[in-house]
């Protein structure tokens, strides 16, 4: 197991398509169209600006079965988008960058966990793996 992570191929990295554009947000019109176009993310309402839904991931291999709700917060001169359920976050200079970072992190987390047998994971990581498996759908080619 000591080499299990280190020996994984770079195929995971190649799955990420940074140029992919975002498709159809799954709710009503976004409040910030430019942001939604770039990230597929948008606040649900003016009263909920500290939370944001994002519906797409930066890879063609995976899609979300439903949007994920991230909490936004300022951290010094950066923005953090975090998913409390799986204790994961993205960070960037602005909301767009933070959401993109979070999306890439979620993809890396999912693919890495999928490559490891449950017996070789702590109970906490098994929980995270199951949580992600319920929300992410591996696309067939």
């Amino acid at each position: 197991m000591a080499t299990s992570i280190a020996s994984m191929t770079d195929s995971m990295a190649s799955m990420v398509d940074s140029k992919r554009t975002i498709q159809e947000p799954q709710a009503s019109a976004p409040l910030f169209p430019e942001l939604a176009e770039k990230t597929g993310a948008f606040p649900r309402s003016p009263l909920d600006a500290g939370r944001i839904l994002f519906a797409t991931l930066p890879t063609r291999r995976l899609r979300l079965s439903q949007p994920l709700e991230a909490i936004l917060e300022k951290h010094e001169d950066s923005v953090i988008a975090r998913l409390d359920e799986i204790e994961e976050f993205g960070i960037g200079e602005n909301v767009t960058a933070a959401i993109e970072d979070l999306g890439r992190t979620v993809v890396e987390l999912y693919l890495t966990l999928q490559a490891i047998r449950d017996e070789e994971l702590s109970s906490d990581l098994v929980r995270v793996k199951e949580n992600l498996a319920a929300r992410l759908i591996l696309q067939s080619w």
Partner: protein
Amino acid sequence: MKVHEFSRLETKLELRVRNSGDRLAWFEFEGRVITRTKRSHGNKDLPANLIRQQLKVNEAQFNGLISCTVSKEDYVEILRDRGLIPAIQKSTAP
């Protein structure tokens, strides 16, 4: 949390990454992957409270990890206490 503080954590806990571009680092013990945390990219400071949550330690333990008063062996014991690493089986043989 400063970048050099995170680097110290990475070194002390021997966190593993697949390659330098990865966003996550993983703590392994006896062939099992126990915790993971987000890595620092560039010179941006990371949110200490979120890194701490991912590593499953409290504030005092986290500060100890950074300041060198908590060792890797101590960290293993912390994770054992939290049930993330199986407890050491006491021998019942005579």
